[in-house]
């Protein structure tokens, strides 16, 4: 499959800066992407409208508006964009809520760094099969 010339627009939503840096580096090492960063759910919704991301990575525990609420709101105007919950919360009830509100995938970010990297790469292969592997 041929690769596109323009970078994939990825919205990375997390209130912890080190997490945004780490995930941004992993993504950048695997696909040709432009990472847009947001620190909470409210900012994520605004950036979704202005930047039109093609992939959204969404933390849950954030100030102002949490990730589950943001997910529900983003889904109303972006029904087909992959939204991946990236969080250290792993309660079954929360996972179910994310499934019901239209999350595309769910990755525990409290995994060991190398395992988290593998999960992120698998996720990219799933949503961008022709793009991953060569940034």
């Amino acid at each position, binding site marked *: 499959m041929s690769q596109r010339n323009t970078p994939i627009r990825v919205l990375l939503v997390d209130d912890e800066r080190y997490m945004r840096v780490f995930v941004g580096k992993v993504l950048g090492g695997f696909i040709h992407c432009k990472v847009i960063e947001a620190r909470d759910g409210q900012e994520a919704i605004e950036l979704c409208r202005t930047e039109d991301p093609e992939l959204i990575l969404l933390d849950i525990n954030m100030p102002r508006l949490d990730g589950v609420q943001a997910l529900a709101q983003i889904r109303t105007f972006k029904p087909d964009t992959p939204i991946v919950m990236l969080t250290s919360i*792993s*309660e*079954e*009830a929360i*996972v*179910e809520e994310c*499934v019901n509100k239209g*999350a*595309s*995938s*769910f*990755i*525990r970010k409290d*995994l060991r760094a190398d*395992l988290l990297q593998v*999960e992120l790469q698998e996720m990219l292969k799933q949503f961008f099969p022709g793009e991953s592997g060569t940034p």
Partner: protein
Amino acid sequence: MSDPIKSPKLPLIKVPSLVDYLVRYDLPTILEEARLDYNQASSGTPRLLNQKDIAARFRAARKPEKPAP
């Protein structure tokens, strides 16, 4: 005239035996309650899922429903 030495009638008190202090546990019932409590997201301690279970849950949600024959 009443007898001053005669004591008034006292109600009979049953002396407790060891059997009365025994607590009987219904182990099968307790185990069943614990099992339900553990497996229901709405009660007891929240059940935490590992990455493999979470991925399986999302795969199941993505699976298209079988078309009617």
